[in-house]
């Protein structure tokens, strides 16, 4: 098999807020009944985290679960485990109505890290990112500039962003430009 390379091959735009492409990541779209016990069990077994509530993401390193819609989860695993994870899901949910698809190579993951990371995202998305309404663990599917994207907060200084691979360069440049332009000062920033 050919060697897999992520969309931007780990590109970094360093600064007060750093934008960094995460490299390869295993991503699986899972559609089904999110209240189903078998589905919840296999998701937790694969990732080690609980199935998130509406609008939430539970992540731990390369692994995690993101709430995409009332019948859809994004399952995050290390890249090398994605194929096996799909097989595991298919075995666990056999006979039920579901869909599991490895989309690792169709997506890109970008980290936005630094003191005013909130504002870097807020300048680009029609989402209220005030600390009162958006906190670590919160997850949102929306747009960044001209393209569809999703993001969640890992901690007060870190956003994780996903977008389609075909627009990874645009998304990266957009985030890097927003970071380079500096803080707006709309939100209280952590010291």
């Amino acid at each position, binding site marked *: 098999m050919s060697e897999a390379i992520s969309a931007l091959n780990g590109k970094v735009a360093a600064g007060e807020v750093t934008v960094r492409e995460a490299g390869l990541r295993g991503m699986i779209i899972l559609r089904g009944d999110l209240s189903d016990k078998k589905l919840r069990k296999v998701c937790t077994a694969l990732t080690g985290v609980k199935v998130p509530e509406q*609008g939430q993401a539970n992540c731990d390193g390369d692994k995690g679960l993101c709430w995409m819609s009332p019948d859809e989860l994004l399952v995050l695993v290390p890249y090398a485990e994605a194929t096996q994870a799909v097989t595991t899901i298919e075995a666990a949910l056999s006979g039920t109505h579901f869909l599991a698809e490895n989309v690792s190579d169709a997506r890109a993951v970008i980290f936005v890290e630094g003191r005013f990371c909130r504002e870097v995202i807020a300048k680009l998305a029609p989402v209220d990112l005030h600390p009162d309404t958006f906190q670590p663990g919160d997850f949102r599917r929306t747009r960044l500039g001209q393209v569809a994207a999703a993001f969640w907060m890992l901690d007060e200084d870190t956003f994780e962003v996903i977008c389609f691979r075909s627009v990874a360069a645009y998304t990266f440049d957009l985030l890097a430009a927003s970071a380079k332009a500096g803080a707006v000062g709309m939100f209280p920033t952590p010291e």
Partner: protein
Amino acid sequence: MLTLRCPYCGVDADETDLHGEGQAHLKREGPGSSDEDFEDYLFMRENPKGVHFERWRHAYGCGKYFHAARCTSTLQVFGTYSAQTLEPPQDIKDKISGARPGWS
């Protein structure tokens, strides 16, 4: 800017996150319907100044279709509700009646 709460995500989605899908609660006319009914179904839409029911899609979000009740002249939003219904739920009708007595 219009902001609608997606009933599936529970988030307040800006108009640019959404896609308008036209008048709500249309009855589909298929094979076997009269030409007049089929033409009405395809082409004839209400264009009220006032209370209106619309379909929207949370295009950049969950991707689901939902319904919205709003006023076309003031842009007041009375509420949003599930797509899995043939008519507005009673609580939405009550809200409209509170704001626009005698609406139809």
